[in-house]
């Protein structure tokens, strides 16, 4: 079995656009490792990712965000979901 070290693990970065983020919490709900949390920015709730080391790079936060406020890099290389696929999660937190 090939040994996997820290160097083999793909490095990632989660970027959150606070202007687009409405603090709905959808990304927090779908993250399988509960990496994301809400913080107050100028009195408004925004998502933050303080410790990204245990992010799985599943892109669930990105797929489910109805506001395109969160991106995981490097980008997901497989088939992208359609805009229609994003809609079912959005209606639950209408603002």
């Amino acid at each position, binding site marked *: *079995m*090939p*040994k*996997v*070290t*820290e160097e*083999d*693990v*793909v490095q*990632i970065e989660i970027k959150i656009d606070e202007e687009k983020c409405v603090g709905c919490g959808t990304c*927090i*709900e*779908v*993250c*399988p*490792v*509960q990496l994301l949390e809400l913080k107050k920015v100028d009195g408004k709730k925004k998502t933050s990712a303080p410790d990204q080391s*245990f*992010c*799985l*790079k*599943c*892109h*669930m936060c990105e*797929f*489910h965000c109805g506001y395109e406020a969160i991106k995981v890099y490097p980008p*997901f*290389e*497989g*088939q992208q*979901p*359609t805009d229609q*696929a*994003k809609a*079912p999660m959005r209606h639950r937190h209408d603002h």
Partner: protein
Amino acid sequence: MKEYHLEKEVGFKCDTWPAKGVPDIRPFPEECWEILRTLDLKPLRGEYRGFNMDPLLENVDSPMAKGAVRVFESEKIEKICLWWQVLSGRSISGAVIGFPRDDYDFPVMLIDWDEGRGPGHGMVDHMPLCDIVLNEDYRIKYLDKLDGIYRDYYDIIGPPSLHVWFRTLTGPYYSFFRTKSGGTDEYRQRILNLPLKYLKEWADTVKEAKPIEDPAHREYCIKRKKVLQDWLYVRDPVASVMLRCYGKELGSLVMKGLS
């Protein structure tokens, strides 16, 4: 206490790698193996579609993930993968994906499930190997046996996968569900009972399966199976996780084991 054979016969058990925040891990891989071990499986060794499968005979280990990706074969089964991972020490993922050999056209078995401290998801299906509009007999023969189970669990079946390419592959009894936060509540037990029922039906299907007689149907099913496998290999979002956790070489091998 029920006796399970997974640890002795395959080399791991459900709590080999603990997941923070998931109390009382249900012995789901053990329960799957109790069904699978009736199919005369043997480890898939050596070359499979350009990949050497031998590294998967051992448990996998990386700073981000630990678990088992075991692949097996039998007289009728080209490849079946029993997959159990703990990711980032926080999330459990399990899967069973099985494909018929070229001489058979029974459906592809699919179980996929994950849970952690927060909500997770799961899905189960018998994926048809051919078009079931033009081949309604196929649906009647292989898939309609799931109708009673599907109706019994209809209340927990939730929205389908986000990914349109995946929805294209699924059968009429495809079931998708969301797990709630870790715990031993009745809901969680029910949603894990559903895939086990599908797996039992699939195992019975395999035991009764006869080789394809029509050469044209055989050729068509082989072609469609290969496309299905290629799509799972290339498009499955779990590939992103596997490459992140295991790096390109082992991550690609894990995906080939799954697809």
